[in-house]
Structure formats: C-alpha cells, structure tokens
C-alpha cells in the first residue's frame, strides 16, 4: 500500500482519469451499435474510482446516492411507458440530423443504460466503502505489514 507515497502512481492516475472518463462515455454511447453499453461503462467508471481511491485522490462516498439515482432512472424508465399505455419497458428510438456529426440516433435505451451506469458505479463505491479502502490508503504512510503489527500503537491515546 505504497500508493499514497508514490508520486508516480498519483500522477499516472491523474493523467489516466480524463482519458478513462472519455472512454467510458464513448463505450456508453457506442453501446447500441458496437461493443459497450451501460454495464461496461459503469465498470470503467468504477475502475477509475478504484484507482483514484487507492492513489488517495478521493474517498469512496455517496454510494447510496448513486444507487438511488440509478434505481430511480431504471425504475422510471421501466414504468414510464405504461403511463401512455405502452407495455412495461417499451423503448422509444429518436434520430435527428446534427451538423458536423451527421445523423445521430439515440433512444430511451440510452437513459436506461445511464441508470445501469449509476447502479454499477454505486456498487463499486459500496465495495470500496465496505472494504474501507480509504483507510488502507492512510496506512500507506506507515508501510508496515498490517497483519502482524498493531498499526494503531503509535497513535496518541
């Protein structure tokens, strides 16, 4: 657990973050026609959060918020079609011309995928939170074998 003390790791993670976010967004939007989709995008984002947590750049927080938002999106997406008489989880496909990019096609499936992304991210954050990942990082200041040494010994009582 030397991540905290290694400037190389921290710098690398900071450099990777925007790229990984871009890839995640790409995977999400590409999902309908190419490999990718909400689950993959969520895992990518989750991986970014894992890296950043281990590098000590952020705390794994708001797991419940992610889960709730994702759950609401997915649940709404599932029930909404019934409001106008369509079957449960019915999809709407939209396409329109956008300058430069050409024809853009999307649909309510994208919204559904966004909900999936939020839930997956929420799960990863919950895992990190559950394993108390940030405290592992803190221990990195004293690189010792956590199994054999009482690392709290030096703490003021």
């Amino acid at each position, binding site marked *: *657990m030397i991540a905290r003390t290694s400037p190389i790791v921290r710098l690398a993670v900071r450099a990777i973050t925007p790229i990984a976010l871009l890839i995640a967004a790409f*995977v999400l939007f590409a*999902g*309908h*026609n*190419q*490999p*990718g*989709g*909400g*689950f*993959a995008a969520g*895992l*990518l984002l*989750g*991986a970014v959060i*894992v890296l950043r947590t*281990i590098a000590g750049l952020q705390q794994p927080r708001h*797991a*419940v918020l992610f*889960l709730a938002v*994702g*759950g609401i999106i*997915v649940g709404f997406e*599932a029930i909404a079609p019934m409001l106008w008489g369509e079957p*449960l*989880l019915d*999809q709407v*496909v939209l*396409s329109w011309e956008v300058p430069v990019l050409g024809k853009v*096609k999307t*649909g309510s*499936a994208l919204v*559904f*995928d966004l*909900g*999936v992304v939020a*839930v*997956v991210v*929420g*799960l*990863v954050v*919950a*895992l*990190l*939170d*559950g*394993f*108390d*990942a940030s405290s*592992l990082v803190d221990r990195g200041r004293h690189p010792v074998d*956590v*199994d054999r040494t*009482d690392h*709290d010994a030096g703490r003021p009582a």
Partner: protein
Amino acid sequence: MIWFLLSLFVVASATTAVFGARLGRNALWVAAIPMAATALWSLTFVGSDDVVESGFAWVPGLDVSVLFRIDALSALLSLLVAGIGALVCVYAVGYFSASAAGMGRFASTLTAFSGAMVGLVWADSVWTLFMFWELTSITSFLLVGFKNTDPVARTAARRALVITAAGGLTLLAGFVLFVDASGTAVLSEITPITGSTATAAAVLILIAAATKSAQVPFHVWLPGAMAAPTPVSAYLHSATMVKAGVILVAVIAPAFQETEVWKPLGLTFGLATMIWGSIGALRHVDAKLILAWGTVSQLGLLIALLAIGTPKATFAAMSILVAHAVFKAALFMVVGEVDVRTGTRNINELSGLRRSMPVTFAVALVCGVSMAGIPPTLGFPAKEAAIEAVQGLAGAELWLVGGLVIGGSVLTVAYTTRLLLGMFGSSEPMPDRPVSPVRPAMTTPEVVLGLATVGGFVALGWVTDVVRTATVVVSPKAEVYSLYRWPGFTDAFITSMLVVAGGLVLGALLARRVVLSGPAARGASIADALIDGLGRVARRIARRVQHGSLPLYLATTVVVLGTAAVPFVGEIDTDQLYWWDNRAEAVLVLMIVSAAIAATTVGSRLGAALVLGAVGFSVAGLFVAIGAPDLVLTQLLVETVIVVGFVLGLGRLATRFPTATRLWFVGRVAVSLLIGAAVAVALAGAASSPSGEPPILDLAESAVDEGGGNNVVNVILTDTRALDTLGEVIVLMTVAVGILTLTRKRRTRANATDAGGGDTRVPEAEAVG
C-alpha cells in the same frame, strides 16, 4: 361516492396519524367524520332496491378485480359498521382522559379498521373481500395491542393476530378453490356448486369464518382481546370484526347450500360455540369478560342459523345480527363507563349502581332485556324469529338443534340477569368505591343505542322492511317473512316465555352464589403454548439452516445447482462434440485449467487471488478467440474490479490460508469437481439439443427495426430482454445495500470498542471447518 367515502377513511386515518400529537383526544372527532358520512349515505340505500356498483380490473390476467356493490344488505351492514363506529368515536372521547397518550395512533387505527370493515361489507368480489378481511385482521391486532407496553395486551393481540391470520390463509385457499369450482369471483353472481372442490372450499371458508367470528375452538382469542380499551371492544367485538365471519357465511352460503359438509359443519361450530360461550359467560366475574363470552355465544347462534340455511333462518339471523350489534355495543359501553367511573368491572365488587348511575342503568336494562329477548325491545322479535326458524326443522334435527338453541337461550337470559343484578342490583351502596361524575360523551352514545333498541321495537315495520330487503339479497325466498311485535300465543312465543322464566330463575340463583374469580383462560394458554412452540421450532430450523459458515453456504448452493445438471446427462450427443474451432482456444483452455488447479493449491491468499485473475483474463482471451467482443470487454472490466477487490480485502486477512483438515480438503475437492462436471454436462447437453431455430436470427432482425441498434447483445440487454436487465439491476442494488449495511454495522461496532479503549480491529471470522 363509494370511492369518495373510502378515500375519506384513508385521509382521516392519515390526518389523525400525522397530527395526532397536536390533536390529542380531538383526533377522535376527525375519525368520526368518514364513519358518520358513510352511515348517512348507507341510510339512503337501506330497505330500497337501488344498487350501485363500481370497480376496476386489478390483475386482468388472473381475473382479479376490485369490485364494490351497494345493495340493501351491504348498506345495512355498512350502516351498522359506520354508525356504531361514529358512536364509538364519541364514546372514546369520554372514555380516555384528556391527557391520554397515543390518541393519534388510536384514532388512526380505528379509522383504518372501520374503513377496512366498510370495504369488506361492500366488496362484491372474493378478492376484494379477502383484501379487506386481512386489513381488518391487521388493524384489529394494532387495536387490541393498543397498550403496547402491557404484556397481557401484547400476548392477547398476538394470539388474535395468529388465529385470524391463520384463518386468512385458510380463506385464501378456500377462495381459490371456490373460484375454481364456480367459475366466478363475483359474489353477486354466485350459483350453487357441488363436487369435491366445492366441498373443500366450503370447509376452508367455514373454518376461516370460524376463526374470525370466534367459533369454538378458535374462540380463545376473543376473551383475551378484552385487554383492548373498551371502545375497541365495543366496536370490534360486538358490531364489526367478529361479524365479518358471519357476513362471509351469509353471502357465500347460497353457493354451498348443496354441499354435504356445509350444514353439519356450520351447525357443529355454531351450536358448540353457542353453548360453550354462554357457559363461559356464567363463570366469569369480570363484566367485560361476561359480555365477551356472551358475544361468542351469540355468534354461535348466528352461524348455526345461517348454516340451517332456510330463508326463514337466514332472515332470523339477519334480525339477530342487527339487534345484537346495537345492544352489545351499548352494553360494552355501559361496562366501560362503570369501569371508568368506579374503577372496577368485577361484579362482586359492584352493587347498587342503579342509584348512582341512573341513566347508565336504564340503558343497561333496556339492552340487557334485548339480549335476553324480552319485549319491548328489538331483541324479542329477533329471538322469536330464530325460534320459529328452528321449529321449521324436522325429525332428529328439530330435537337436537331446537334443544340446543333453547338451552343456549336459557343460559343467555341467565347470564344477562346475573350481569345486571351484579352491577346494578342490591340497594347497598358501595362503601369503598366513590362514583366519579357523569361524562356526557360516554353517556350520549349509550343512550342513542338504548333508544335504538326500544325504537326498533316501536318502529318494527321499518326494521322488518330493512332486514327483509337485506335478506332477500342472499335468500330471495325470504320476502314473505316478518318480525312481529305481538305474535299471539304461538308455540314459539310460549317457548320463548318459558326460556325467559327459566333463565331469570337460573340467573338469579347464580347471582347469589359468589364466585371469587373467573376460571383460568386455559384455552388461551394452550393457544399461546402452540404459538410459542411454533416460534421455537422455526428458530431451531433457522439456526440449523443459517449456520453462518460461508464455505458451507457456497457448498450447499453449488451442490444444489450441480444436481440441476443431472437431466442434461442424457441429452449429450457425443457425435456433435469436437475439440476446437481454432488452436488458440486449446492453448487458452490449457491456461485456464492450469490456473484453476493452481488456485486450489496455492498456499498464500494473494497468490490465489492472482491465479484466479489469470483464470478470468484467460477466459476473456477465449472470448476473443470465439469472437464475442462484448463479452471480452465486460469480462476484462469485471476481472479488473474483482482483482482490486481481492487486493483490498486481503489486507484484512492473514497472508496464508489456514491449514485445512483432511475431511475439509476432500470435501472441497469433491464440491469443486461436482460443479465443474455439472457446468460441463449442462453446457454440452444444452448445446447438443437445440430446440428449433436459434432465436438469435429473429433477434438480430428485430434489433435494428425495433431496438434501433446494430449491437444485438446490447439491444437484447436494453430492449428485448430489458426486464431481465431490470432484475439484474435490482440484484446489484441489493448487493450494494447489503455490503453497506453489513460493513457499516461492523464499523460502528469497531468504533464502539474503540471508544471503550479497546482494540479497533475486529478479528475477521474464519469460518473454515
């Protein structure tokens, strides 16, 4: 209007729950609003041929609907339910002290109960009826257990809930069979049914009615329910909830009239209950318990009359139902008032209250006279009708049923006499018990009900009309019957006068005999013991199944799944099996297998995690070779996260696995081999027996047209099979919430130890056999 009134109940219940603390006792006035409105509206339907129906399909696929139907019968019942409910609310304002706690909760549950009861009597579909039936069970549980710090009340509430909820399950089963046999769930379209299904349904529904209406041997919950505040007893255990079973039997009887079990079983329940209830009423010294046992007895009579099933008997049952609802509610109120104003309900300690509580005495006298079936009260013509109905029987049935009904009636007169003499008789004032001043809120509803008891006799023509039109709904031939103020010297009249005379003498004799305390509630303790035993057995099973060993849970799951693969063994077509599509697969499989074997033999935890990672990444490679990019992407990401998870988790565990015992090792190997073999067999079997065209072709086509995407896999996930994805999302959320709650709990505990100056580290449980 139906929906408006029902929503009024919901609104009133919510309002009193939310603002209860601020409203205090006044919450009861809010609770009375929907009841009074319902009673007034019901009044316009009583005795008329108008019918209002309303409803909607709830689960159209299963033919389950919410249906309501207001006709003369349901309107009469809702008039009783809501009218007495409103009076009980007023009474409760006087019963509780101004500073009583929990008034919001009380008013809210009382309103909810009343609404459920109104819904029950209005229901026209068995499913609607069932829904409200269960709702009354739950709300009455809350009402009986209102004094939730009193262990007696809690045990009583639990007993009532378990018995009536068991009856609810029986009812559900009975209704399923009934709908199956009759082909309709609509109560107003009932036709007579026969056959074995009908018989089973009849038995189940009768048992359900018996639990709700406190028939022997299910009556044990009712006397215990007297632990509730008296307004609750006056409401639930006189006019409403206990009548639910009677009402059910009344409306569903036309269907079962021709089954063989209906009549004998109903008569057995009813007559046994009638006799046992009235004996119980004679043995107790607590006035409220005397009334409770009296109610049990009256319910028995009602069930017996409905089981006889002739139009005349049904008519008599309806008359008694009305009369009983009125006088029993009033008598409970009287006992409650005596209790509040003197501080005791023990008839040994009470005497001479006719001087100090004259109005209450008048009400008690009138209602007691009605209960005994003496003119000039409503109870007299009703009892008369019952005796006439029994006379209509022939042969052995006449002697048996008639004898028991007459015997029960004598006992009824006797316990009424004993109760009235005990409370109000003897002119000696009570020296050590001062009587507190009158409370108008309590006396007024009593007087209203007392006047109704006499007024019903005076305006018997109207009452006859009302009861007759109500009876005709379930028994069309009943339209020829009437209630008579003065029947003439018929056999029934002479019989009934002999009954009254016998009862008076018996009651007076028994009133002299001083019984110090009532009998122990043996039935109730047996019921409690059964309930406790059930809990113990359940706990024992839970302990056995939920042993807490993670490896054993996994092994159990895996073994069960493994056995599911057995049917696939015969499906494998060895001719279709071949080794590989391209050689890369062989190499990757070799990697997977060796890594998997390594994972079982590595001694260090970190090593095992890494080797497992190797398995996962090799599988991803295999997907590349097969040409499944979506799977590759997902597999790679999942593996990454899993490896990270392992690394984080391992930080908390010892670096090496604990040394395993030989048995554990063998077991582990066996389970691993089993799941491996099972998966292989299942896959091979499934692959060699394709059932028709692979659906992928259709899916690929529809993906572009309907799903609007070229990636079939994702269109399947988000559109074609979006319901599956929804399910998976729910699984993910459940897992996440599980992780959060489990680890939070652990951390809070760790912090607690920390605060105590101890070690912050909680040792990880190593559950290895």
